């Protein structure tokens, strides 16, 4: 029944769109077979750059965010300066629009022409994304750390484990498990946001499409890029949902 109704509804929508007066113009601008074939290899090559940036950034984010979250979770007056630094980092970075952070670091730092510091837009753009996402992801980890019962910390400390050992062997493993669904959602949005470094001129998928469009004034390459991003982000989103659902069921089964 769900299948039949889906077919009927989609068919009706398609019929209306294809019969509308504007459709021939839309088709020429966005669904042009010739321009698609011409631009696709270029966009695809750029898209590999997006995938590569996504993977590198994700690894860096997961590590940096965990370090920030653990510093924030340290207790005792001796760690106050460290905690203050972590909180300041999170507050400032989260308050800056991602695109501004990318422009600021991607153009700003190379402009300083510092000795021994790379002027690569790709490097600084990606660094900006890593910093921006780490601030958010650190808060995700923190929620996970807070969700581990206080009694776990107490029982680890009572066995003589130090504060760091307690975090490392008892708290963080449980915390990470609790926030995997939220981390997966972060993956989905990062996979798209890496494309923002195009503003620095990095030759990734969106930038390649833009270059092609600049000489042809046909917007089909944008749709080619769209299709490529969806090809990755939809399965990733489905997987995140599937994992979250499985996790929820497992927790229900455990509490009975």
């Amino acid at each position, binding site marked *: 029944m769900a299948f039949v109704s889906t077919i009927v509804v989609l068919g009706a929508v398609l019929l209306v769109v294809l019969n509308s007066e504007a459709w021939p113009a839309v088709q020429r601008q966005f669904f042009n077979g010739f321009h698609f074939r011409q631009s696709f290899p270029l966009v695809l090559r750029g898209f590999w750059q997006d995938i590569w940036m996504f993977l590198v950034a994700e690894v860096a984010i997961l590590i940096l965010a965990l370090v920030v979250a653990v510093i924030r979770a340290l207790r005792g007056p001796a760690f106050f300066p460290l905690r203050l630094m972590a909180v300041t980092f999170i507050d400032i970075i989260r308050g800056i629009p991602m695109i501004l952070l990318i422009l600021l670091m991607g153009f700003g730092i190379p402009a300083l022409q510092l000795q021994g510091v790379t002027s690569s837009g790709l490097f600084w753009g990606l660094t900006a994304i890593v910093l921006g996402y780490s601030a958010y992801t650190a808060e995700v980890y923190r929620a996970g750390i807070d969700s581990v019962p206080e*009694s*776990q910390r*107490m*029982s*680890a*400390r*009572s*066995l*003589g*484990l*130090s504060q760091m*050992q307690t975090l490392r*062997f*008892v708290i963080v*493993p*449980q915390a990470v*498990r609790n926030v995997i669904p939220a981390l997966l959602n972060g993956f989905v949005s990062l996979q798209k946001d890496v494309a923002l470094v195009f503003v620095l001129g990095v030759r990734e998928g969106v930038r390649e499409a833009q270059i092609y469009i600049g000489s042809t004034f046909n917007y089909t390459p944008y749709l080619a890029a769209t299709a490529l991003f969806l090809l990755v982000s939809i399965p990733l989103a489905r997987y995140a949902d599937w994992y979250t659902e499985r996790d929820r069921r497992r927790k229900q089964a*455990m509490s009975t």
Partner: protein
Amino acid sequence: MKLRVRGVEKAFDDKQVLRGIDLDVEPHEVICLIGASGSGKSTLLKCINLLVDIDAGEVWLDDLMITSPRVDADSIRSRMAIVFQAFNLFPHLSVLENITLAPQKVLDVPRSEAVARAEDLLGRFGLSDKRDEYPERLSGGEQQRVAIIRALAMQPEVLLLDEVTSALDPVLVGEVLSLLRDLKAQGMTMVIATHEMGFARETADRVAFLHDGTVAEQGPPAEIFGNPTRPETQDFLRRITDAGRL
């Protein structure tokens, strides 16, 4: 190892829980702390284990004042062990890993030796077949016995037990109490906060009755249960008897 508690006071916010506790624990002695809920039994154990900072008083382990700020709390905690009412096993670790974690990380015991010791303890208390299970798959009684073994694996000089049977089904209480009797037979020094009066009467060398944040009365179980001198103790025991718990 001799444990001395002198004038310990502790308040949480404006609620005064301990109002000057004095208690001595001799080597190989088993002391049961009895008293109504809220009389300070759990708080006292946590103060002894340095999990809670005290407001006044001293706790001595032999010649060392462990409540001194100059003492390394982690190293003191590794000489004592505390077991909680709610087991608090680490849910992401197997039974074996729960037991071997602290000996390896705190005492630097090699893994093979830690595993051998854990297996020996599991065998002695009839839990060998649970070695690779995760806590969620164990009964409450099994979880609590694993928690006690986890504490024993640190080879503590004194074992603190905080109402370790209170969260258990009545049918599972027996297996945990019998483990404690075995430990007493082996000469383990224990401080046991408990509501199991029958167990306290038969197993303890000394019973301390806590009332309103002080040790109101203490002595051999026969004396405390048979011939209590303080009105608070008499009142408490009468209510316990009326409830059919003694």
